C-alpha cells in the first residue's frame, strides 16, 4: 500500500501536470497576445529620454507584477537536468510569460490612469523563499515591471 502511494502519486502528478502545464501555457499565451494587441498604441521604452517635442503634462509611476511558480513536472525535470547541467529549457517559458504578464499589467495600469506613454521601464525578478525551513513548501518567483507614465498635452 505504501509503495503505491510513494510511486503512484508522484507518477500520476508527473503525467497530469505535464499536460495541465502545457494547456495552461497555451491559454496564457493566447491571453497575453490578446492583451498585447489591445495595448498596441501604448508607447513603452526602457530609455529615459523622450522626443523633445513631447509636452508632458502629468507623470506617475506605474507598476505591474506577478508571482509565478513551476508545476510538478517541470520541477522534477529541472532537478534531473541539473545533474548534468546545461540549459534548463523547461524553466524558460514560464519566466518569459511572467515578464510579458508583468509588462502587460503595467500597461493596463497606465491605461486605467489615462496614460499612453511609459518611459524608463525596469524589469526585476526576485525569488521568494520556500515557506518552510526544510526547503519544501511554496516557493515562487516575482516579476515586477515599472516605469514612469507620461501624459502629453493634446
Amino acid at each position, binding site marked *: 500500500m505504501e509503495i503505491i502511494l510513494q510511486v503512484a502519486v508522484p507518477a500520476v*502528478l508527473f503525467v497530469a*501536470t505535464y499536460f*495541465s*502545464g502545457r494547456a*495552461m501555457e497555451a491559454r*496564457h499565451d493566447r491571453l497575453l497576445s490578446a492583451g498585447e494587441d489591445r495595448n498596441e498604441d501604448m508607447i513603452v521604452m526602457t530609455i*529615459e529620454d*523622450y522626443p523633445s517635442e*513631447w*509636452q*508632458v*503634462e502629468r*507623470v*506617475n*509611476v506605474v*507598476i505591474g*507584477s*506577478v*508571482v*509565478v*511558480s*513551476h*508545476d*510538478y513536472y*517541470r520541477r522534477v525535470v529541472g532537478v534531473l537536468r541539473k545533474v548534468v547541467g546545461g540549459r534548463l529549457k523547461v524553466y524558460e517559458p*514560464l519566466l518569459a510569460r511572467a515578464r510579458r*504578464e508583468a509588462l502587460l499589467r503595467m500597461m493596463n495600469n497606465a491605461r486605467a490612469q489615462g496614460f499612453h506613454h511609459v*518611459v*524608463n521601464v*525596469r524589469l*526585476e525578478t*526576485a*525569488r*521568494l*523563499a*520556500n*515557506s*518552510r*525551513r526544510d526547503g519544501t*513548501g*511554496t*516557493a*515562487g518567483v*516575482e516579476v*515586477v515591471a*515599472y*516605469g*514612469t507614465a*507620461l501624459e502629453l498635452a493634446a
Partner: protein
Amino acid sequence: MIISNTQTIPGKTIVDFHGVVSGSTVRAKHIGRDIMAGLKNLVGGELKGYTELLEESRQEALRRMILQAEDRGANAVVNVRFATSSVAQGAAELFAYGSAVTVE
C-alpha cells in the same frame, strides 16, 4: 506628490533637494493563502494570493516613502526604485526608495 522613476520630472525643474527617502514593509504569507498556494505550486502558473499580497505591500512601502517626502517638505520623488527580498521563510520585504525634491 509627483512620483517618477526618471532622473527629473518631465516638464518641470528641480529647485531643491531633500535627500533620500525610503519606505519598506515586511509581510508574511497568510496561512490560508499559503495552503492554497501550496496546491497551486503543484499545478504551476500564477500564485494569485502572493501577487496580491506583494502588490498591497508595495503600495504600503510607496505610501511610507511618500509620507517621509511630505515630512521633508518635498513635492516630488524622483528616480524611484523598488526591491523585493526574501528575508526569512515565508516572509518578503518590499522596499521603495527615491530622491525627494521640490519641483516647479
